[in-house]
């Protein structure tokens, strides 16, 4: 039990866009279960993962449930720290105003410290 004490938050890194694969959905499931287990959970949206937060998304034509409703449930699970890499947003022509939820913007130079601060880190 030398990994995590009650002050260490779990980090779930989301690097895939919604709809095209199950990475985002299964990554969010780990975040929700972690929170349900009493862990403090922070989310980091990185690379294509920032597209998960684009507002106005629907289920899509493929019959998937979509991850939109899951994102709306995060607050209920006390998952309130949503970190978004500002360069990933800019590279995709997005700004904070395009996003569905309030987020904390961070820069790439902050990432090493962020990873060092969290245990465990789950990468999806």
């Amino acid at each position, binding site marked *: *039990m030398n990994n995590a004490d009650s002050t260490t938050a*779990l980090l779930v890194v989301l690097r895939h866009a919604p709809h095209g694969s199950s*990475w985002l959905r299964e990554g969010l*499931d780990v975040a929700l279960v972690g929170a349900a*287990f009493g862990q403090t959970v922070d989310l980091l949206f990185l690379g294509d993962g920032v597209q998960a937060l684009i507002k106005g998304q629907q289920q899509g034509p493929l019959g998937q449930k979509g991850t939109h409703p899951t994102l709306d449930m995060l607050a209920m699970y006390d998952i309130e720290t949503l970190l978004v890499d500002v360069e990933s947003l800019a590279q995709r022509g997005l700004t904070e105003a395009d996003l569905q939820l309030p987020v904390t913007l961070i820069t790439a130079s902050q990432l090493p410290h962020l990873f060092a601060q969290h245990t465990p880190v*789950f990468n999806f």
Partner: protein
Amino acid sequence: MRYALLVQGAPYSHQAAHSALRFASALIDRGHRLETVFFYHDGIYNAQRLATPPQDEPHLIEAWQRLHHEQGTALLVCVAAALKRGVIDERESQRHGKQGHSLAASFELTGVGQLIEAAMTHDRLVTFSP
């Protein structure tokens, strides 16, 4: 140290399972313990009972089972990720009215909670993804 692995790549499609097994034998050779392997995402296909690779290629499913028998490693498979991909045990098969079951021996279906638990109770959790 007590290690847990998270495997998210399907066998024979990606390198993830091969690398995880090589890492497993390396850490055991160094005197560490591999207590848990958790299979998630497409990694659940590592638990396919009917996998039949060519005889001159490594049998990854049997390699996991050897770890279980020789090291006592728990082989945990996420039930939600597995069921929707068609990897089910006898109990789930009956419950859902399916013919046959597809989970290999020595693997067990479990929830994501066990992954969180593994991260908390082991010294290291190492992820192998495609």
